[in-house]
């Protein structure tokens, strides 16, 4: 171990305890924006499962539901089946490109306003202020001796943390089952073990990550800040301290105007005090900065008090920072946001969205998939006819029972029957009843006179026998022995 006198300065320990962050209350445009976004995102998260959506008697009436047991995903009018999972992949791609778009246009806005870690950290920090008081009171309490008061406040605080965390986990499971039923079952002990397990895990993670880890998640755990750096350029908005305006720093007594003999920064440390990740923005862009802009609010407040223009700390691109430093002016915001790169992202993002909407509008709700029985490929019958067997998967994606007719075309002399029929009653079509919102498997026997080519393409079609004319067909092979065998 190095002695304290050792000028090489090796640290006393390999491990550092977290330095507490006790952000000060602040008010201003960005703080209000943050409140508004928090309210909207939390309302969406907690409220969405309770929205009802009438889909008829055979499907659940929850607007947004991930029905893992029945392999369905409901989102308002849209219903996704497992074989249509590419829509979910499309949504994920849109989310990815959306992040590129947002990051290239307004920097780490996701981190600062919409990331769940940010939203819940903000919520928990507000709980801190509610129970322990503002920054100074929190610091006093944290550094003070254990007392009845401290014990009571800590107990109450952790109880509120736990309650918030529990509601967070509780809301999550509502997306996977009918919310009112699940709520009832959950409290009467009848819900599935996985429900209790999920709530327990999410309660624990929310409690730990939101209550204690906070900015450490952003700085040490999250890969996103590292990736984001690659997506930003000198035209992306950053929270920037304008050192050419602020330095050198001086000090001004409370209530006084700025004398103008030094830079605008009066070293009041308000920007540090309000920062939820505990950084000093005046040291330049850094990984701990989530661009939530609370320091802008704080600094603007101080600038107004001492009679200097606002915007000593401001959203600013690197290009603008350079031009302002050189005595020029910043570009208008419109030009910052609308540039080839962002427009390209916007174009790709919209194109994928439009393609998905078009495809959703075009898709049929009666789907046919045919599988040719391979073992045996064909069966020779005693009268010389050849029989091939197919397994049909008929998907009725509508929430009502239907009947479909299955026919074949392109195979001369063909007759067909299903496992419930027999060759004696074979005809040119079979009719299959389909249960609502379900997949029906049918074994289809197709018989044709022998002597044709060894491999012949023909078409199996399924057509709904009701007012909906939609249907589906598939081209598949009919096999028979080579002539002369």
């Amino acid at each position, binding site marked *: 171990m190095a002695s304290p006198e050792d000028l090489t300065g*090796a640290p006393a320990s390999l491990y550092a305890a977290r330095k507490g962050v006790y952000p000060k209350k602040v008010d201003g445009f960005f703080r209000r924006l943050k409140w508004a976004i928090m309210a909207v995102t939390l309302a969406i998260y907690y409220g969405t499962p309770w929205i009802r959506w009438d889909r008829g008697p055979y499907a659940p009436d929850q607007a947004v539901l991930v029905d893992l047991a029945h392999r369905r995903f409901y989102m308002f009018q849209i219903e996704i089946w497992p074989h249509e999972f590419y829509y979910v992949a499309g949504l994920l791609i849109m989310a990815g490109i959306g992040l590129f778009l947002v990051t290239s246009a307004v920097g780490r806005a996701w981190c600062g306003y919409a990331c769940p870690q940010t939203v819940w950290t903000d919520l928990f920090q507000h709980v801190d202020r509610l129970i322990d008081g503002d920054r100074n009171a929190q610091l006093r309490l944290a550094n003070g001796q254990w007392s009845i008061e401290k014990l009571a406040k800590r107990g109450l605080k952790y109880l509120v943390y736990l309650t918030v965390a529990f509601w967070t986990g509780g809301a999550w499971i509502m997306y996977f089952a009918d919310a009112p039923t699940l709520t009832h079952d959950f409290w009467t002990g009848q819900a599935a073990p996985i429900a209790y397990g999920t709530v327990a895990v999410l309660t624990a993670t929310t409690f730990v990550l939101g209550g204690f880890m906070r900015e450490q998640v952003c700085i040490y755990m999250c890969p996103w800040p590292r990736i984001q750096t690659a997506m930003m350029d000198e035209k992306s908005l950053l929270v920037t301290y304008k050192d050419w305006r602020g330095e050198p720093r001086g000090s001004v007594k409370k209530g006084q105007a700025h004398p103008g003999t030094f830079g605008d920064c009066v070293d009041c440390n308000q920007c540090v005090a309000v920062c939820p990740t505990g950084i000093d923005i005046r040291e330049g862009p850094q990984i701990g900065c989530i661009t939530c802009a609370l320091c802008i609010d704080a600094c603007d407040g101080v600038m107004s008090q001492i009679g200097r223009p606002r915007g000593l700390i401001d959203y600013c691109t690197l290009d603008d920072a350079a031009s302002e430093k050189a005595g020029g002016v910043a570009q208008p915001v419109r030009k910052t946001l609308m540039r080839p790169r962002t427009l390209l992202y916007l174009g790709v993002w919209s194109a994928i969205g439009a393609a998905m909407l078009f495809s959703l509008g075009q898709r049929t709700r009666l789907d046919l998939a045919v599988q040719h029985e391979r073992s045996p490929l064909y069966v020779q019958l005693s009268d010389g006819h050849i029989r091939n*067997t197919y397994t049909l998967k008929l998907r009725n994606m509508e929430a009502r029972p239907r009947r479909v007719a299955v026919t074949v075309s392109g195979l001369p002399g063909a007759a067909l029957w299903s496992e419930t029929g027999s060759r004696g009653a074979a005809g040119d079509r079979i009719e299959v009843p389909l249960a609502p919102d379900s997949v029906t498997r049918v074994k289809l026997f197709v018989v044709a006179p022998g002597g044709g080519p060894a491999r012949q393409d023909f078409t199996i079609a399924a057509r709904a026998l009701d007012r909906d004319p939609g249907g589906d067909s598939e081209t598949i092979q009919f096999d028979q022995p080579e002539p002369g065998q």
Partner: protein
Amino acid sequence: MADLDNQTPTGGNRIDEATGTSTVGHEWDGIEELNTPLPRWWLWTFYLTIVWALGYVILYPAWPMIDGATKGALGWSSRGQLEQELAADAKRRAPTVDAIAATDIVDLPAKPALMQAAVQGGGAAFRVHCVQCHGAGGAGLKKLYPSLTDDDWLWGGDLGSIHYTITNGIRNPDHPGTRTSQMPAFGRDGILEPAQIADAVSFVRVISRQEKPSPSSARGATVFETNCAVCHGAGGEGGRQVGAPKLTDAIWLYGGDRDSLTATINQPRNGVMPRWGERLDPVTIKMLATYVYSLGGGEKTPVAPTAKGQGADGQP
């Protein structure tokens, strides 16, 4: 750790000006490494994983010994878990299996749900016991084992007949119930002259519509009437009491061309099938019969039960 640091070639650490953090002393092409301490929760997480691992080693089989591994305090084993799951599955299937056992096989088709379960169970058993000869889909093997998917049956294709065949086997020695018959070796044993056999072959190929009538086939008709009709029927329509194949259709187990037919008459093969009644339990055999029946060639149960194995010649 300072000891380790002091061993570096640069002989000591300096404070990095930009960050105020000391360097560890390593340098690569002018790039130096900062000695930033890890967050302490990282250390605690590491300790937690050790505690977890210790608990795991105590609770579960983990430590290799000379004859196996330590048992673990919970007594868990993958084999034991499999047994539990198998037992649970057997319990789950018990009502269906009991219902199949209690139902006469000819009544199964009238109960679709039960029939479906039986076909599924039979398919599983088929894949274990029958595919070796009859193929994965029951297609058989040309010149060796009959196809079970077509509409031609040597001993009958209704549920009762299939069930009987599986239970008792075919030409299974030392069992009185087995299906048995023997086609004489007309050529090898010198019952027929080669010319007579050639004529009989011509006749069989005429009644199966593979050849046009000829003088040879006219002579063959007489040979057939004398030697073959007793089993294969006057018109070659076959006889299921003795498993004599129908000779007028397009399906030939051992081949329908001249060479194959000649070989068959010279020295018939008389295939055998094991008697499964002594190897499998009755419910499995019942399910196997329904599966074979469902492959596409199942026939209706004959109306008169007295004519067992006969009749029901109509198309399936």
